[in-house]
């Protein structure tokens, strides 16, 4: 009899065992429900399948379930519902912390989550929405470009340009640490592996007082300090462009998270260049190619010590654009012929066109008592950006024909004190020192760079604000005192800010903001020899009025009207002058020198952003975004459109679940083309060809920009891991959206030479 029972158990389908509590082979789902941000435990209910269970008073729950996969809905009053899919494993306890998002908010917090993985903080926004947004390669940070107010230029750069400002006016951070770039160039993958990313905090404007040294927007990628689940979990992903991994491990009070990525697309480009290039019948010739290379890593160790958490972290990333030169072997000796160009001593590698890298280390102590939270941290870092592009236009992360190296030291302390149920007071200080060294490589043939400049850049900020919550009204007045020191000058600016929210009804909330911001221009823009040391601190005043509404059928509509005035803004400017040029002239005649420089000017922007979003329910989710905006800069004689002035911009993102764990999603975007400076043609009579010079700044516009991206993915759920295979195609119909103007030889026709073509990629991801 005993044997018969065993046999019956061995062959029975797990579903037949039923969900009787106490069955020896059932698994357990246990954990707690907390509020995002504060971490407070919440009263809640969990709906698992057809059953609804109420949590304990302290927000904890415990369920015994038959092994299998379940849809779990977590609910708590005044918080957004959380949908999750959990897998219960035989005789195993799965411990989870659910963090719920409070309804009212004037910032968009995007939580990245990749579907039914076993770990983490998820919210209704993330689980199904961002994970599958196509064209962002499954990258949540890149997915921010799909929100209204964010300019989506046609080019390959992953800059986040918001509300008519410049790319440099968006502060990029990882866990509050400033980084030179958040995206790898050309392919646009973010520098943080999504597997270690907890969420992405995005402010299109109206940042509270704890954010300084930024004038328009903030993208703050937040990685895990405390993985919510015990044990080892992670992800490995591989595709045509790169491979990466991310993992978290937690055992008792210790936890570790690590992630990284390395690209191999350069190898693919090399092989395909050889195939495409018609080398003819000359076997001594090997074609060269240009390719990107990128990598990144994140490493963190954390220890919980009662009310405190100590964390030590390291992050780094590198982007390079290298040339593998053409090679000849004319003398047939089996070795490449020496190239006289290579024999010249130079202070740089002529085959490295762009090279940007940064490395940061942090020691951080967080106090987590409910009535008083604090953060104390010390950050040390180093970054370097170099470029050989002299007239390509300024990429925001690299100087023109030179190199910038910086050391970063940050000491910061912030406190949040809850005085009462209605009043919270916050304050803090941040001191940042950045010794900077720049080199100019204009004279490319000598052993030492022609100009070397050094500067010790300092930024210091003290801030305080109060948050008053009367139920209907939520007010946060604050002030920040920001000091900047660079190019030997000191500037101190007070930055008052006020955020207000009003719950007009259960479904409608109104928001408003007004405030002032200041920002030190990037290091290479003020560096002597490369930039303009006379640039002042950038400043901006922002104001916005908004409406967030939630309709009964799961649709939310958000609309914001914004305006900003920038009394000091750093813009790029092309300067033509006469000077001696030792490279090209040995008799000291003056010749035309074209330098791409930086100037201070005024700017303004105004606009309307609107978004209608269908939250994930049933088979569909997605959103429609529309932005109408104008941005201007002051020129010598009149105001001209800003570089990212795209008056109309629309986007539609839609995703549909299909049977058997397939999902199809698409993104269609359409916007005005970017402005550009036209070329006025001059026919050179004695040489019988055409030259050109720049006409009025940004007086012409590139063609209407539109493209479609599609993504299809399939998931297999295993006992210990889930496997996802995806195909992601960017620019499905290969629309030629030029991202910079190029002309035919008589400058009469704008050719669509420089555009990002169709880029398909396929990959595999394993989550465990």
């Amino acid at each position, binding site marked *: 009899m005993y044997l018969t029972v065993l046999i019956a158990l061995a062959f029975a389908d797990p579903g037949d065992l039923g969900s009787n509590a106490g069955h020896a082979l059932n698994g357990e789902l246990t954990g707690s429900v907390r509020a995002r941000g504060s971490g407070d435990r919440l009263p809640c209910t969990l709906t698992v399948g057809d059953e609804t269970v109420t949590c304990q008073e302290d927000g904890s729950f415990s369920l015994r379930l038959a092994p299998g996969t379940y849809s779990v809905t977590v609910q708590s009053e005044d918080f957004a519902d959380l949908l999750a899919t959990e897998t219960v494993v035989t005789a195993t306890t799965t411990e989870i912390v659910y963090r719920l998002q409070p309804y009212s908010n004037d910032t968009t917090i995007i939580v990245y989550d990749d579907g039914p993985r076993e770990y983490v903080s998820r919210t209704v926004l993330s689980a199904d929405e961002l994970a599958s947004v196509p064209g962002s390669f499954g990258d949540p940070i890149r997915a921010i470009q799909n929100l209204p107010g964010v300019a989506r230029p046609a080019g390959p750069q992953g800059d986040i340009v918001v509300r008519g400002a410049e790319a440099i006016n968006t502060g990029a951070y990882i866990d509050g640490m400033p980084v030179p770039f958040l995206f790898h160039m050309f392919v646009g993958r973010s520098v943080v592996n999504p597997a270690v990313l907890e969420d992405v905090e995005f402010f299109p404007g109206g940042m509270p007082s704890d954010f300084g040294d930024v004038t328009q927007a903030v993208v703050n990628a937040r990685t895990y300090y405390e993985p919510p689940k015990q044990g080892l979990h992670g992800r490995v992903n591989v595709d045509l462009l790169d491979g990466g991994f991310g993992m978290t491990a937690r055992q008792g009070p210790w936890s570790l998270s690590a992630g990284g990525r390395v690209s191999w697309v350069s190898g693919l480009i090399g092989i395909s260049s050889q195939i495409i290039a018609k080398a003819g019948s000359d076997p001594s010739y090997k074609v060269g190619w240009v390719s990107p290379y990128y990598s990144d890593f994140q490493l963190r160790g954390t220890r919980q010590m009662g009310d405190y958490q100590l964390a030590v972290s390291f992050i780094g990333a590198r982007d390079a654009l290298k040339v593998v030169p053409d090679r000849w072997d004319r003398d047939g000796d089996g070795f490449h012929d020496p190239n006289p160009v290579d024999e010249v001593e130079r202070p740089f590698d002529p085959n490295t066109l762009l090279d940007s890298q940064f490395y940061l280390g942090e020691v951080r102590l967080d106090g987590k008592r409910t009535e008083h939270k604090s953060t104390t941290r010390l950050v040390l870092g180093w970054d370097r950006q170099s470029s050989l*592009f002299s007239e390509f236009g300024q990429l925001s992360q690299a100087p023109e024909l030179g190199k910038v190296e910086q050391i970063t030291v940050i000491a910061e302390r912030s406190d949040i004190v809850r005085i009462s149920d209605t009043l919270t007071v916050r304050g803090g200080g941040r001191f940042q020192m950045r010794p900077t060294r720049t080199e100019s490589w204009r004279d490319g043939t000598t052993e030492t760079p022609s100009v070397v400049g050094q500067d010790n850049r300092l930024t210091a900020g003290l801030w305080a604000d109060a948050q008053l919550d009367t139920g209907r009204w939520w007010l946060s007045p604050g002030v920040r005192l920001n000091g900047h020191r660079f190019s030997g000058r000191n500037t101190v600016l007070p930055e008052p800010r006020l955020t207000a929210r009003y719950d007009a009804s259960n479904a409608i909330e109104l928001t408003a903001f007004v405030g002032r911001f200041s920002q030190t221009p990037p290091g290479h823009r003020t560096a002597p020899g490369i930039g303009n040391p006379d640039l002042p601190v950038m400043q901006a005043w922002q104001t916005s009025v908004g409406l967030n509404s939630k309709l009964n059928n799961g649709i939310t509509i958000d609309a914001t009207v914004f305006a900003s005035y920038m009394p000091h803004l750093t813009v790029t400017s092309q300067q*033509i002058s006469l000077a001696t040029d030792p490279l090209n002239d040995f008799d000291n005649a003056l010749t*035309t020198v074209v330098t791409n420089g930086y100037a201070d000017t005024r700017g303004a922007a105004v606009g309307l952003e609107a978004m209608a979003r269908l939250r994930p329910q049933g088979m569909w989710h997605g959103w429609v975004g529309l932005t109408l905006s104008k941005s201007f800069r002051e020129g010598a004689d009149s105001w001209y459109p800003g570089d990212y002035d795209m008056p109309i911009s629309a986007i539609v993102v839609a995703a549909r679940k299909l049977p058997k764990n397939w999902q199809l999603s698409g993104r269609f975007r359409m916007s005005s083309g970017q402005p550009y400076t036209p070329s006025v043609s001059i026919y050179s*009579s004695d040489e019988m*060809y055409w030259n050109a010079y*720049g006409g009025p700044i940004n007086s012409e516009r590139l063609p209407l920009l539109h493209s479609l991206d599609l993504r299809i993915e399939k998931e297999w759920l295993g006992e210990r891991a889930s496997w996802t295979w995806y195909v992601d195609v960017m620019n499905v119909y290969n629309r030629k959206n030029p991202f910079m103007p190029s002309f035919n030889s008589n400058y009469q026709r704008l050719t669509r*030479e*420089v555009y990002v073509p169709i880029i398909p990629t396929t990959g595999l991801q394993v989550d465990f």
Partner: protein
Amino acid sequence: MRALLTSLVALSACSQWDAPVVRALDYRIDRPRVVAVQTDLEQIGRGQSVLIDGLILSDTPPQSVQVLVCGFVEGQRTRVGDARCFQNDELVQQIATALPAIWTPPEISGDCPDFNDAFTDTFQPNTEVDNTAPPPLVRLCAADVLLAVRATWADGRTAMGSTHIEIASEDGPTPPRELRLPLQLRVPPTASAGDEVALEAVFGDPTRSRGYQWYVSDGELLKTGLTRIQRLEDEYALTDNILRIPDDYSGPLTVALVANGSYFSGQTVWRTAVIEVTP
């Protein structure tokens, strides 16, 4: 080196890629154009005057014409070949408002290196050559600037053409280019729409074999807009073309021929003619 680096970015190369097509086929006067600018001197000696002329082709006469020089600095030698010089108004001077124009440039500094000193250690002068004779008027002692003709129309359209000119900082007149080389353009005075008409040009220098650039108001040039010498007669070079007039054309049809100086180290000359086309 810098030029090599900038050319690594495909843009500048991409903008010249269809030059052979444009030079051969962009011959219709479908927009205002300055198709030739000439000077009667290749190098202006100290105190000399230069005659500047240009050919402007358009459907209507321009409202204004400016003759501009870019990169000229009084008292200073400059070497300017980049058309972007015209982007900086401070470097541009207007020297006339009609064509033809005469310009006498102010003096530039004689701060010229000695012919031998001008060479760096890398390039040793050839000591076997007898260089005791006075050196010729050399490039080293001149300024090289851009001259341009800019025409503006009432509706805001503009057209621009340019040429180089050297201004010597030492005495010595330079021989002017042969200004009055005979060029005769032979076209029928009248034709009907749809006709193919023969165009012929006779040029007074038999050695000038190439660089004949044709322009027409409309129609198709069966030998393209760029032709070369077809035959010699006595001391004259002949080139020709065939114009197919569109079926729906009527009225005056302009034909222009520019014999471009760059092929000949000589002067650019041009002629225009009109064919009255009846429907």
